[in-house]
């Protein structure tokens, strides 16, 4: 039951993207997100999408896996699209019937919202598809390490994240076993109103919590008995290395970002094209 849920959807192949330093990938994602948000032009957006597809191809992750990440939004996307289409009233009017009015501004906004969401989610999922959860937290720890100066517990936070990630599958498996044990004792989890069902969850939640606390205790003991005492002076098994590939990737991304900003500023393609189309159709003045 619970075991079928896949978490930490890492796709294990070897590729230039997989080999990048997790820090690089996190920075790339941040730059990419900035890029997605500053683009206001459909043509430039095509460039962003193209970049995304290029990265996916480089990573050797099947496109279908990236698309799977978008699937949970199959209801959100159409709703967002329609809301923006009908609610936004800027630009010229295209269509009007009773209380429904569609404007050029609405069409733009609706398209952009959908494109932005798709671009964001697929970008983020490409990161988790090409980076193991452990190296992701490692990268995060290193990136946030300047915050240690203001006594922010960066190492502890990263350690907590690593442990949590490590124990999610264990916990799901255990929940499955507990559920079976109680079902075998005739527990009824499916019938009754919401209060009844909430109460029926108790025989599952209590053992789950009790076991988790016990496990946490044991883990703490096991860590201390191996001399763990926080991040200070701790060395690493795998030292993150910033390679030439990382530098190249960051430079390409920086170039992309600059290009997008410049294009955005000096080449308002959209308006020219809109004018061109209108001219052809002989509408609008």
């Amino acid at each position, binding site marked *: 039951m619970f075991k079928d849920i896949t978490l930490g959807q890492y796709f294990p192949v070897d590729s230039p993207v997989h080999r990048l330093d997790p820090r690089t990938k996190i920075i790339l994602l941040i730059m990419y997100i900035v890029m997605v948000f500053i683009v206001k032009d459909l043509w430039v957006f095509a460039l962003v999408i193209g970049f995304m597809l290029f990265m996916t191809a480089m990573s050797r992750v099947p496109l279908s896996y990236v698309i799977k990440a978008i699937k949970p939004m199959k209801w959100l996307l159409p709703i967002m699209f329609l809301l923006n289409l009908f609610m936004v009233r800027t630009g010229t009017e295209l269509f009007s019937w009773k209380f429904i009015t569609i404007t050029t501004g609405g069409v733009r906004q609706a398209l952009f919202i959908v494109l932005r969401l798709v671009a964001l989610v697929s970008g983020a999922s490409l990161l988790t598809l090409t980076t193991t959860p452990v190296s992701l937290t490692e990268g995060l720890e290193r990136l946030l390490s300047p915050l240690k100066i203001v006594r922010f517990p960066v190492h502890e936070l990263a350690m907590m994240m690593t442990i949590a990630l490590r124990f999610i599958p264990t916990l799901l498996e255990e929940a499955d076993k*507990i559920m079976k044990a*109680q079902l075998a004792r005739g*527990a009824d989890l499916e019938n009754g109103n919401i209060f009844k069902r909430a109460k029926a969850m108790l025989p599952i939640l209590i053992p789950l919590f*009790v076991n988790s606390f016990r496990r946490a205790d044991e883990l703490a003991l096991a860590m201390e008995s191996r001399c763990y005492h926080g991040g200070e002076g701790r060395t690493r098994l795998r030292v993150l290395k910033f390679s030439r590939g990382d530098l190249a990737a960051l430079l390409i991304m920086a170039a992309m970002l600059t290009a997008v900003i410049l294009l955005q500023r000096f080449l308002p393609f959209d308006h020219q094209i809109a004018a061109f189309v209108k001219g052809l159709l002989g509408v609008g003045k």
Partner: protein
Amino acid sequence: MPIVIEKLTHTYQNGSVNAFTALKDISLTISDGEFVGLIGHTGSGKSTLIQMLNGLMQPTEGRVTVDGFDMNDKKQRAKGRALVGMVFQYPDHQLFDETVYKDISFGPKNMKLNEEEIDKRVREAMRLVGLDFDEFAEKSPFELSGGEKRRTALAGIIAMYPKYLVLDEPMAGLDPAGRRAVLEMIDDFRRQLGCAVIMVSHSMDDIARSAEKVVVLRKGEIFRCGTPQEIFSLSDELREMGLEPPFAARMAGELRRRGMDLPKDIYTNEALVKALAEIKGGAHV
């Protein structure tokens, strides 16, 4: 009426790349009052098979009928499940209530029995597993020792008066005295409640002591099924599968190899002692 398993095949994560066939074409009948021992290497599919017996899992192919109730059918499953009591390996997956008394009565309560009947059954179950009522009834199940927890978990199932008692490695992690106690308890219920017992165990000695029928699983298939005599005379095959034949069978084999004239069907300590005493007695006369 018996439990009938017909051409049962089960594949985990069917249809995905991780698909794994844990059971292949299993057919087996468990008659009323029978004691069946289920043995096999770790990962041979024992736990998967017994979870099918009370419908906690549905097979990919084939079916299980419990006293005529088809466990693939959602409506009949509840009725069949009430006949099959299932004891899992870890009591920690099952204990949840404030007191031992309340925890044991969880199953009978789910069966919608009246207060009087529940009370009677809880007392009876506690007596059968050797938990003193006055001492333990009001204790929290979380402050018990490992052995007491296991007794409580067993009592929780016995109080449901199952017609078939299924145990998944009930003796794992117990000391020799604890093992013997649990095994004796199981023999006791069987005599008093007249239930059939299906027990998974790694210990051939335990199986040899009580089982009337032994089923050997290998890689998801029934390798052999027969009386303990038939199965334990196959010492070499068992050993090849990574299973250790019972002590008495090993001993008798070794003595035979060294020229002692012992019958081939010895697999319990009692039989070995008897055979040896006969030889010794004969030599003296």
